[in-house]
């Protein structure tokens, strides 16, 4: 065991308001499980929490990390630099030491990394605590648990280090591991206690969180994918169809498991095309259905999506973006599907695209997407990303009694009906579900061909003009009804950062950081990507520079995909892009530095 500072008899206890802890090891070490426990503990302790993880796309093994940021105040990002690194291996130590703040603490498994192998320069820069995690775990729970229990042992160490609430953690562990075999929970608790009771007397410092702000507020802790799937259930979606692909699959699996409880179902299909087709069929059946995918799966769905635009069928398409094109970087983050989400497919095919910005926003955006799909009879793409999908956050428990809705189709007979009524004052198409009697005896048809008001095909140039306009205008109407974006920070200044999707948190944190350093910088977040709400032009007018921060390539025009979209609405050369394609989430400082540099 070695520490940079000289060992003290009892380490001092520092009060902290937040901490960033990075746990690094291999994917089979149960790192996500420790991160998950920490996140849920924070949620139960009414603290804000945000996590970040990377998972290798290989089938088994490979380095993996989980970073958790726990704060007593508002947490907007997973943190640029870690206060503490827990490294299971030599390679985890080497790869992640750089993510640690100077003076930060690294706990390493001294069974894998020998104290004498640590370069002297590292000892001077970071505070090292070596713990024989592997062998101590074996000692605590027996020979078979070598790889299995060390994550829980490490959780015990962290509990001691940060004075975490042991009764709450014990309850979480018991809940998690209580299954068929009671021994499993007992073993887990043994490993935890061994870690917790380990003599950390040589640790340089121990920590204690100041109480959270949100005291008394009941919080739920889940990933973005979970929040989105539960949001769809809350919105009344009872049918879904999909095909396995990372990182969308979690949503599919959850809906498959949960929907039957509500009388619904989710179908795993033979391919991406079948899954969107089946969902559209179910939507026509009378109740908005969902399909979803990631990466190449979205490309495959675009023809059927075009049909849903043409037939004006409500539909939810979830796109959990990952690195592209083609198979690309399946387990990395990218926001490069904006163009396909808005414009993918042949012909003029306007549809709605909404980009949730946080785990909580995934839940509510799903409900909103369903409402919009129904009200405007349109497909809605929910554009999330790998980062938001896999990270875990705590948020205020929704008022379920209020938000959960029923959208059972109305099959009561009607006198007459024209789905594509051109004279309808609101200009919006509505469908009758099959099974609805039409007393006039004139039944509607839904089709991908250009059609008349009853859905029968037409080659009339006049009708095509009118129907194209009808499909566009109803979404213009939606744009006018969308809530106007609001500026984060003063309404006037030098720099306005524009965020969309999951970049909202890091962008707002960058604004806070730069404002604290005296810069006149604000930000605006665009949640409704397509169509866009009104009011952006007025907001942009208050700033000298407008920088669109997004995780995609700057392209031939030197601006990212959202930047291009904005320029098509507001043709102003002051709109420029801050983009990157390293497959990693934004670091707050990275955004701030680049914005200040570009404005110079």
């Amino acid at each position, binding site marked *: 065991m070695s520490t940079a500072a000289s060992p003290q008899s009892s380490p001092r206890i520092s009060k902290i308001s937040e901490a960033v802890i990075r746990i690094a090891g291999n994917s089979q070490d149960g790192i996500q499980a420790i991160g998950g426990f920490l996140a849920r503990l924070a949620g139960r302790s009414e603290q804000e929490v945000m996590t970040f993880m990377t998972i290798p796309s290989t089938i088994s093994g490979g380095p993996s990390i989980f970073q958790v940021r726990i704060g007593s105040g508002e947490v907007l990002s997973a943190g640029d630099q870690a206060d503490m690194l827990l490294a299971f291996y030599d390679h985890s130590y080497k790869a992640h030491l750089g993510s640690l703040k100077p003076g930060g603490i690294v706990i390493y498994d001294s069974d894998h990394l020998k104290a004498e192998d640590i370069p002297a320069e590292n000892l001077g820069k970071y505070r090292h605590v070596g713990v024989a995690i592997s062998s101590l775990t074996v000692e605590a729970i027996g020979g078979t648990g070598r790889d299995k229990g060390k994550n829980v042992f490490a959780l015990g160490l962290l509990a001691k280090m940060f004075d975490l609430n042991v009764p709450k953690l014990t309850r979480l562990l018991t809940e998690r591991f209580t299954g068929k075999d009671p021994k499993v929970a007992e073993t887990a608790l043994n490993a935890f206690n061994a870690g917790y009771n380990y003599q950390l007397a040589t640790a340089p410092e121990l920590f204690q969180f100041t109480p959270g702000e949100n005291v008394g507020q009941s919080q739920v802790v889940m990933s973005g994918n979970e929040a989105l799937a539960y949001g769809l259930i809350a919105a009344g979606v009872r049918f879904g169809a999909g095909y396995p692909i990372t990182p969308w699959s979690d949503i599919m699996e959850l809906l498959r498991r949960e929907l039957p*409880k509500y009388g619904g179902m989710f179908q795993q*299909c033979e391919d991406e095309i079948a899954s969107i087709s089946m969902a559209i069929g179910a939507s026509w059946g009378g*109740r908005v259905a969902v399909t979803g995918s990631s990466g190449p799966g979205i490309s495959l769905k675009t023809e059927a999506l075009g049909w849903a635009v043409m*037939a004006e069928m409500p539909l939810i398409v979830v796109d959990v973006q990952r690195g592209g094109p083609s198979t690309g970087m399946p387990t990395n983050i990218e926001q490069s599907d904006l163009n396909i989400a808005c414009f993918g497919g042949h012909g003029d095919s306007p549809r709605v695209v909404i980009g949730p910005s946080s785990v909580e926003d995934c839940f*509510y955006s799903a409900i909103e997407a369903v409402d919009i799909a129904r009200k405007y009879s349109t497909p809605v793409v929910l554009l999330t990303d790998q980062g938001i999908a896999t990270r875990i956050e705590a948020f205020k428990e929704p008022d379920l009694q209020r938000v959960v809705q029923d959208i059972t189709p109305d099959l009561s007979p009607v006198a007459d009906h024209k789905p594509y009524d051109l004279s309808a004052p609101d200009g919006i198409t509505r469908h009758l579900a099959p099974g609805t009697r039409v007393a006039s005896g004139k039944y509607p048809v839904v089709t*991908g061909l250009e059609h008349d008001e009853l859905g029968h095909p037409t080659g009339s140039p006049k009708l095509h003009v009118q129907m194209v306009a009808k499909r566009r205008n109803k979404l213009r109407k939606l744009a006018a009804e969308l809530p106007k974006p609001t500026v984060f920070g003063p309404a006037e200044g030098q720099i306005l950062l524009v965020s969309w999707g999951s970049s909202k948190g890091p962008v707002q944190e960058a604004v806070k950081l730069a404002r604290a350093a005296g810069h006149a910088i604000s930000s605006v977040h665009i949640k409704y990507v397509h169509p866009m709400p009104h009011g952006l032009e007025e907001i942009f007018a208050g700033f000298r520079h407008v920088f669109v921060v997004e995780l995609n390539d700057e392209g031939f025009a030197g601006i990212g995909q959202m930047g291009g979209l904005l320029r098509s609405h507001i043709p102003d050369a002051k709109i420029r892009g801050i983009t990157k394609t390293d497959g990693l989430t934004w670091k707050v400082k990275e955004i701030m530095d680049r914005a200040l540099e570009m404005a110079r």
Partner: protein
Amino acid sequence: MTESAILSLVSQRGPNTSTAPVAPLLDADRKPLTKKEISADHPTWCPGCGDFAVLALYFKLIERRKMLHEKITTVAGIGCSSRFPYFVQAHGAHFIHGRALPFASGVSLSRPDLHVCVFGGDGDAFSIGGNHFTHTARKNIKLTYVVMDNSVYGLTKNQTSPTSPIGFKSKTDIWGSKDRPINPIKQAIAAGATFVARTSATNPNHVLAMMEAAMDHDGFSFIQCLSECVEFYPGAFDAAIPRKGGVFNEVSKEHDVTDEYAAYKLADTAWPGLFGVYYKTQRPTKNANEQAIINDLQGKAAGLEPWQILKKNFERMK
């Protein structure tokens, strides 16, 4: 914090639906629909096309079965025959090329009160939609699929289809097709279809008998119906038309329709082959299997409102 701004219950009825009151109509008061009531657009098919007969027999089926107007659900993909839904005065969907089956599956699974009839051609079924044919059959999704097989691409004007025989000359095989054609009956049996029949548009009584048997089947019912394209493959099925010197041989009454291997072998009968039910078996439908899962899980959540079921999940996420 980020609660929906638009959150509201949205009615699916609006100004494009007449608000005039509708007199109740008891099922007992209903008369069988007439051909006039169930015909919509005049078919766009060429004069002499076999598809006219299939349409006329669908009308006959509706009439004979006293189907309720609003329950008639007709789905198709793309192709000449797939124009079908426009010609039926009932709820219908004309979907994209090759994907009528998954679309219809979505309707069938979410609306057990409807019997979905899917119509399409050989290109739609066995070429672009080949994958869906296999999986809809093996999952035994309850619907009826009538493939109007003319062994040529007609809508795109004379290209080789997956059922075109070897030697067939088309714009894409000017020297004659060399590819072994698909045998739809064998394909269906191998895929796990639970009702497999073959008929020809030139024998109306037989078509109607097959359609009725298919409607009665609880599962995926497939009918291959030879339907001549007079424009691009005239005379394709003459060998099965007695008045043109051919033979319309029916599957023998002795054939055991539950014998998968016998059915498969029967499908190899020399051209023009046999007509009738080749294979019929009972296997739980996807619809029934899903309903069993629903019943089981809903039983466990008995008496709970949807929000309370969700609340139980959220309790575990604290």
